[in-house]
């Protein structure tokens, strides 16, 4: 096939465009970080999830080990049922506890996992028994106000 100068310039343009897309995907986006598609799911019941959202990070010792898969409302127990997808590289003991924490003062909420001491580890579909709900600011403040009231 005959090569023209236009071909070269179109090539330059398309290459630049694809490189830009790749940069956006890998460097700007989170394609390179834990995708958690390769992992196992466990469940947790929370009384109140606060502002937790799907795809929020799941951290243990501050390291991202997975993502929140999905959140639904359980109308039997009237609590929130959170699916936690954990990277398959990481194993956690059966008595691991999960709590909903906030990164920084105004930061987003994430799930913190604290490993227990059980020798058996969590598998696909297991439930995390020990959970700690999100701190709802109003409840916390009213609780403190009530405490203050009784002291008088």
């Amino acid at each position, binding site marked *: 096939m005959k090569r023209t100068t236009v071909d070269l310039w179109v090539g330059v343009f398309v290459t630049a465009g694809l*490189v830009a*897309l790749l*940069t956006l995907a890998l460097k700007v986006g989170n394609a390179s970080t834990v995708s958690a598609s390769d992992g196992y799911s466990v469940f947790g019941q929370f009384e109140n999830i606060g502002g937790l959202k799907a795809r929020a990070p799941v951290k243990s010792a501050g390291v991202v080990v997975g993502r929140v898969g999905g959140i639904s409302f359980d109308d039997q127990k009237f609590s929130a049922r959170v699916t936690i997808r954990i990277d398959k590289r990481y194993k956690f003991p059966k008595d691991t506890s999960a709590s909903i924490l906030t990164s920084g003062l105004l930061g987003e909420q994430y799930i913190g996992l604290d490993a227990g001491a059980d020798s058996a580890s969590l598998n696909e579909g297991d439930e995390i028994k020990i959970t700690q709900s999100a701190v709802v600011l109003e409840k916390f403040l009213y609780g403190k106000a009530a405490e203050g009231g009784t002291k008088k």
Partner: protein
Amino acid sequence: MIGALNRGFRHVGHMVIDGVWKLGVATRFSWFVMSRSTECVRRAQLLLNEVYFTGTLSLIIIIVSGLFVGLVLGLQGYETLKRYGSAEALGTLVALALVRELGPVVAALLFASRAGSAITAKIGIMKATEQLSAMEMMAVDPFARVLSPIFWGGVISMPLLAAIFSAVGVFGGYLIGVVIIGVDSGAFWSQMQANVDLQEDILNGLIKSVVFGIAVTLISLFEGYDAPPTAEGVSYAVTRTVVTSALVVLALDFVLTSFMFTGV
């Protein structure tokens, strides 16, 4: 008094009917352009020439404006975020603003004024000088030979241009934030990566830019094809292309945004 009122109503009615009529013609025109696309698959050189014309030649303006938009975002974002003590979130702010909104929208506006106006002028003059009719006389379908390759060239170029705009803009934000002001480089990138989602943000931005590419190129082609075959007619058509494209891009952006980012 009654007569003036009557004329006013008649004028408004005429404008509405004319607008609806034109929209119908534009829809039929769009269908024509898309249904004659097989020619550009068979003759790739036609398509390549158009990608060169709409894409490669727009590179400089896209890169330069992307860089400056990124620089401004970095500067303004830093000034605002500094008050809340979260200057590290600068990367997130710059990247999200560019990938979600500014990249596709500003690239589309630049594309409309740089390539869209040229397309309209080209088609308008080809029609005014009866080159399109001459093609039909030689049994060459002008839709397949001229209009359809331009359409697909624009549709291919637009997402690539928007991606380049966003990438260069992020680099501009990095330049101001990290290199000049001194925000921590690690926090800049890691916060950006933690908060920019591949599907939610980058893919949706890409979809936006494809939609804008289709809209702007079709408007440019239609205005050129519909222009009265006079010097004045073509000049009005070029103006209309830029104005209509800008309005349509901004309106579509609102609609797409409300579909895509519903605050999940």
